[in-house]
């Protein structure tokens, strides 16, 4: 039987942990709302650039920009987006697992660019081919904050050192659901869901030149959007993980309190019995 003092100490310690997890839950909830807002704010740009690109690709079917060429895949690059911090449930390990599975399944050797400290640490520990790291961009990244890593991946492709570039991140489906997702960045697939362009455009200089300028922006925009979405997912996952932790702490405290009461009661009962027994012995 644990002593009453130990039990009380234990309860206090769980209560303190619960205070922290509750605070983290609230912080994550507030950050998640802001992160969701950023995802929404990024939509008009993404929609617009998609519709322009779909139109351009329709207009220049014979033009094969390198980003549009499908080549036999001898080497690949994966851009792995994760969070910088842990305590967000299985979010990071799901992303990493998806990336690793895709690496094992493909015949081609795969290099990795990481955006996010957690992914970087695991990839490095596993001694995978880590070619660039773009971590620690904070929770309010600007579009240019993700450029260095993206550029490394694009350069690999442009130099022919990679024939395909993929992106792994956690898609934000709802507050309760985030899905590790693998998206092919290059070769670029024509956007399917784009609305038809509103008019018959003139292009200056040529449609092909505009497409040349647009494609890198499109790819960079996808990486930026993925990072924003991953951040919203991170906060949602952390909020949920911390809520579960707080609930578990609550349950733990209830159980411990019950045990403590029983122990206290047992002690009192024992003491009473001793007194009664002692008195009876004196009388007898």
């Amino acid at each position, binding site marked *: 039987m644990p002593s009453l003092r130990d039990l009380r100490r234990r309860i206090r310690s769980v209560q303190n942990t619960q205070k922290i997890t509750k605070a983290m839950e609230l912080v994550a909830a507030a950050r998640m709302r802001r992160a969701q807002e*950023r995802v929404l*704010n*990024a939509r*008009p*740009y*993404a929609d*617009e*650039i998609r519709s*322009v690109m779909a139109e*351009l690709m329709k207009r220049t079917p014979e033009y094969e920009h390198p980003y549009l060429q499908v080549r036999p895949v001898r080497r690949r690059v994966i851009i792995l987006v994760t969070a910088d911090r842990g305590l967000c449930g299985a979010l990071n390990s799901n992303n990493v697992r998806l990336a690793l599975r895709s690496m094992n399944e493909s015949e081609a050797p795969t290099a990795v660019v990481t955006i996010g400290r957690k992914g970087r640490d695991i990839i490095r520990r596993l001694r995978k081919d880590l070619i660039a790291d773009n971590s620690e961009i904070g929770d309010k990244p*600007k*579009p*240019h904050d993700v450029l260095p890593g993206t550029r490394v991946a694009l350069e690999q492709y442009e130099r022919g050192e990679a024939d395909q570039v993929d992106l792994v991140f956690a898609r934000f489906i709802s507050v309760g659901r985030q899905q590790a997702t693998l998206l092919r960045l290059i070769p670029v697939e024509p956007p399917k869901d784009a609305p038809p362009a*509103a*008019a*018959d*455009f*003139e*292009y*200056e*200089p040529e449609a092909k*030149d*505009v497409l040349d*300028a*647009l494609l890198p*922006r499109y790819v960079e*925009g996808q990486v*930026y*959007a993925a990072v924003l979405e991953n951040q919203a997912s991170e906060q949602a996952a952390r909020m949920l993980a911390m809520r579960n932790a707080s609930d578990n702490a609550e349950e733990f405290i209830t159980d411990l309190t019950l045990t403590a009461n029983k122990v206290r009661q047992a002690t009192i009962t024992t003491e009473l019995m001793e007194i009664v027994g002692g008195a009876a012995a004196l009388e007898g």
Partner: protein
Amino acid sequence: MAKLQVELVTAEGRLLSQEADFVLAPGMDGELGVLPRHIPLLTPLVTGEVVVRNEGNEERLFVSGGFLEVLPDRVVILADDAERADNIDERRAEEARHRAQELLAQNEDNAEAAAMLEGALFRLRVADIRRRRRGEHGGPPPAQ
């Protein structure tokens, strides 16, 4: 008279959404002026300033490249990065210019520094025009 609906969006969000009589944007082959009922056009933009005029009011923004999409009644500017002229912090721009010049002095082919310098100079110019137009002497003197 017909109006243009102007939208300026970056990957971070919508910076401007308003009616206008005239839009000026830094096209690849020089500045491009757009009036209502312009022919539909799509062109890349270079670093420079965008001017949006509406009934005598003028809005100036700095863009660092992007795309211009012109429709008969709508102008969409997809900017890589954009800043309103009033938000441009002159002191910061001045510091950025100094830093860029120092870097350039060390290495002539430093493309990054050259881009930084170009950006800083443009921000300064936009802020300067703004101040002169208002006829006031806003802001502290640039840091030396």
